[in-house]
């Protein structure tokens, strides 16, 4: 199948600062891609390059098989939604939606029909005659999405569209966007720094750092099989626990001498001999009580802090002399100072080479 958006060897420099370096990305028709990373990692820059709002220094961009590297944004077949909504404040919602089409000289009947359809999909029909100043944040963002919708394009670009909204609206609109994607089946590229948005929305997530894509995979793989230490630490809240140590055959020995069996860990390439490694284990993969008894590695720990979160409980403790968090059911009664047995299976965790920081 032909790629919807294809980026080949893309580089972008601002003077001597390299923002994007030799970046390749292929996005399939109808795919929802999330570009995820901390501020300054180049994710918004990449999106602006795809939109044509920034001129690239090197490389090519194809949309629907057409080389659009030097095309104007309007000729690329894209619609874009911005963090600040970027609505035209002096125009009514209806004019906001139709302005671009009017300027392009489209027949009035066609414009009306498209505006009507977009308003119906986004449920903003009662708002059409209002000015953006009289809308709530969520409504404004719907209008902004509508402005991309009426353009009837193949590719939607979202630049942190939910970051200006409060938590409740954000989760509502998140579902809304997912529903929109299921209905329209357009290709969508979505930039965010919020990992929950990324994990819930994406077909595939591209995690970026310093202008380079670290890992491009579906949310499940990203979460469970992070390709390097950076991705492992970035994804997950609370973040993954890390233990430094050495790996020798089937045994991992932490720096303070605690030995743990590696068990059925699926290596990409099993190292030979003694290797310095970092073990990463997610808080929900550390078990307590009966479940801990079945685990290959068990130890007795003292609970330091307990954070009840309602649906679950987060506990802070020390394993192998290092601070660790683990998650357990809210039904289990644990308190600070308790001594309990916890256990985990390294096979469910991740091992990284301490030198290259790559997954083993």
């Amino acid at each position, binding site marked *: 199948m032909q790629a919807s958006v294809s980026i080949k060897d893309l580089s972008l420099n601002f003077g001597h600062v390299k923002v994007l370096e030799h970046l390749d990305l292929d996005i399939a028709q109808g795919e929802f891609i999330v570009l995820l990373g901390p501020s300054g990692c180049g994710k918004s820059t990449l999106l*602006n390059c795809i939109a044509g709002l920034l001129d690239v220094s090197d490389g090519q961009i194809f949309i629907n098989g057409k080389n659009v590297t030097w095309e104007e944004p309007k000729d690329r077949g894209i619609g874009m939604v911005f963090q600040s909504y970027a609505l*035209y404040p002096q125009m009514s919602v209806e004019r906001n939606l139709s302005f671009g089409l009017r300027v392009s000289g489209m027949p009035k009947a066609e414009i009306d029909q498209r505006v009507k359809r977009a308003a119906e999909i986004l449920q903003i029909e009662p708002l059409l005659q209002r000015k953006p100043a009289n809308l709530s944040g969520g409504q404004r963002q719907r209008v902004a999405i509508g402005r991309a919708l009426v353009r009837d394009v193949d590719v939607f670009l979202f630049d942190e569209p939910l970051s200006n909204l409060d938590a409740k609206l954000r989760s509502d609109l998140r579902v809304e966007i997912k529903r929109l994607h299921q209905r329209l089946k357009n290709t969508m590229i979505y930039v965010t720094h919020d990992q929950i948005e990324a994990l819930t929305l994406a077909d595939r997530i591209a995690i970026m750092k310093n202008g380079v894509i670290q890992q491009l995979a579906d949310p499940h793989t990203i979460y469970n099989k992070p390709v390097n230490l950076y991705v492992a630490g970035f994804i997950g809240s609370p973040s993954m626990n890390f233990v430094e140590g050495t790996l020798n055959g089937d045994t991992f020995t932490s720096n303070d001498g605690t030995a743990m069996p590696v068990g059925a860990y699926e290596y990409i390439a099993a190292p030979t001999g003694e290797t310095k490694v970092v073990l990463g284990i997610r808080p929900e993969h550390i078990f307590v009580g009966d479940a801990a008894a079945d685990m290959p590695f068990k130890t007795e720990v003292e609970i330091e802090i307990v954070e009840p979160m309602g649906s679950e409980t987060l506990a802070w403790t020390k394993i192998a002399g290092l601070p660790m968090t683990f998650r357990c059911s809210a039904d289990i009664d644990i308190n600070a100072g308790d001594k309990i047995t916890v256990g985990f299976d390294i096979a469910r965790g991740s091992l990284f080479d301490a030198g290259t920081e790559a997954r083993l």
Partner: protein
Amino acid sequence: MADTAVHTREGAEQAARPSLLNRIFLHNLSGKIAAIPMMATVLIVFIGCTVWTIYFSFTNSRLLPTGKFVGFDQYERLFATSRWNVSVTNLVTYGVFSLVFTLGIGFLLAVLMDQKIRFESAFRTIMLYPFALSFIVTGLVWQWIMNPTLGLQGTMRNLGWESFTFDWIANPRMVLFALLIAGLWQGVGFCMVLMLAGLRGVDEEIWKAARVDGIPTWRTYVSVVLPMMRGVLVTAVVLIGSGIVRLYDLVVALTNGGPGISSEVPAKYVYNYMFGGGNIGQGLAAATMMLVTVLIIMVPWAYLEFGGRGRR
């Protein structure tokens, strides 16, 4: 909000009438004391002097404001004086051109400055520089430049271009445009800086959205950015407008009302009659007419801008 409002009303009813005086004078006393100088200024200088002006415009005062009441005599004389009528026509012509060109050129320059050019701050300083000069200096400089024998025309003719003519300052029909050139030279830079500040206030993402929508740059400026700059435009119009109404020193320095009376303006008329002609009654009548004209323009605008409840 609603809760507090209800509360206050109940409280007021309980405390009843005796405390009314108390509330007027003692509530937030320090704030009221601090406001006294400004309120005194407004009452005595602005309102008091205005009333004084209007009152004596109905008298036949000459050198001193002592004359007796003569009704509308001064106004009849005023509108029978060709110098006054020429002054008013001049001011209207100058005002319209000045407003349109200052705003137009100012906006255009601001747009050009907004194109991420190099040495922007240097250009901005150059453009704003004339604003730092007084109208007297501006008038003198342009008087030299436009003087037919000494200035640009003389220079060009000396260089050999015998037919070169630039004598607006000596031409009764064109002298107003000579004033306009000097006025624009002084005022455009300031207008540009105001507009530039307004342009910079427009969110970068609005521009991006317009580009994605395929709206041409000029169209974005006209249909999106200009309407967003309403506040800046109002400020600019008020500043330019007040500059136009009190136009005086530029005329004195550049043409002194000449040739003949072809570049007279109302403010100069008022000054000449009050302090030069020893005819206070006539000068104050002219001043009152200027006030009335300004009010005729300002009152409907203020009503539209602040009058309707529930509007912005």
